[in-house]
């Protein structure tokens, strides 16, 4: 397959690209219900014998059995709900038990250091898991000017992502409404563990 560079300006190694892709895929899955196209993509996923590979294969298998309507319903039950969803995928909630607390303020500071801000159109706060993963993706790919150094990525990851994301993905894996998202939870948890480990190797 020919590689079409995600970001033409920067030379990002294949290993780092694979991280960016996973962040992007997870961000997309957690940010909005899957549409037909994404569901087709999920069905096409294959995995090898590694734990993450098996997670992807499982995700593909579940996606095969669900319709886009069922996936939308699941997303709604998990994250939207009538009053609220089963889970609240926000850093502040996970770290303090409340929304919009200090962790969000600290995240905003870190974002302004990176030169990024929430869009006016955004209705969710920046500490939503999908937003954090989009930021990780952007740092790797150089969306914010140029690729952010591994040391700075690590700092952001450690301060704002790793502190709660594994717990969140464990909850997702175990959530009552989770079918497709049971696999997403597994993949997310494994990926977070891999990230933590890889950063430590680099540091």
């Amino acid at each position, binding site marked *: 397959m020919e590689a079409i560079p995600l970001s033409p300006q920067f030379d990002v*190694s294949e290993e780092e690209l694979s991280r960016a892709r996973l962040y992007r895929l997870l961000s997309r899955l957690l940010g909005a219900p899957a549409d037909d196209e*994404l569901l087709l993509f999920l069905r096409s996923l*294959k995995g090898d014998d590694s734990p993450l590979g098996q997670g992807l294969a499982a995700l593909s298998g579940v996606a095969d059995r669900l319709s886009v309507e069922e996936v939308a319903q699941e997303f709604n039950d998990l994250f939207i709900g009538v009053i609220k969803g089963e889970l609240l995928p926000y850093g502040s909630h996970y770290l303090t038990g409340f929304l919009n607390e200090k962790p969000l303020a600290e995240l905003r500071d870190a974002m302004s250091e990176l030169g*990024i801000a929430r869009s006016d159109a955004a209705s969710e706060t920046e500490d939503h898991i999908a937003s954090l993963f989009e930021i990780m993706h952007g740092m790797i790919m150089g969306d914010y000017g140029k690729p952010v150094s591994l040391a700075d990525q690590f700092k952001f990851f450690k301060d704002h992502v790793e502190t709660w994301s594994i717990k969140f993905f464990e909850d997702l894996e175990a959530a009552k409404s989770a079918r497709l998202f049971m696999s997403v939870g597994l993949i997310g948890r494994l990926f977070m563990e891999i990230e933590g480990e890889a950063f430590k190797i680099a540091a």
Partner: protein
Amino acid sequence: MKNKKSKTSGARREFLKTATLGVGAAAVAGTLLKGDDAKANAPLKSLEGAGYSETEHVKKYYELARM
């Protein structure tokens, strides 16, 4: 792959290769880079509705990615 300014250490690269690349990253790569990238905008728009923060940089980048 070839020359890079990324200071990916050999150990980190090997680890990531085994842990993520070996996986279905090839599969993830294929469509996310091509199929999905061609459509990069659509997921983003929907994400935006869900609170996705689209910065000017990101917008610019997706414009670039579409070409």
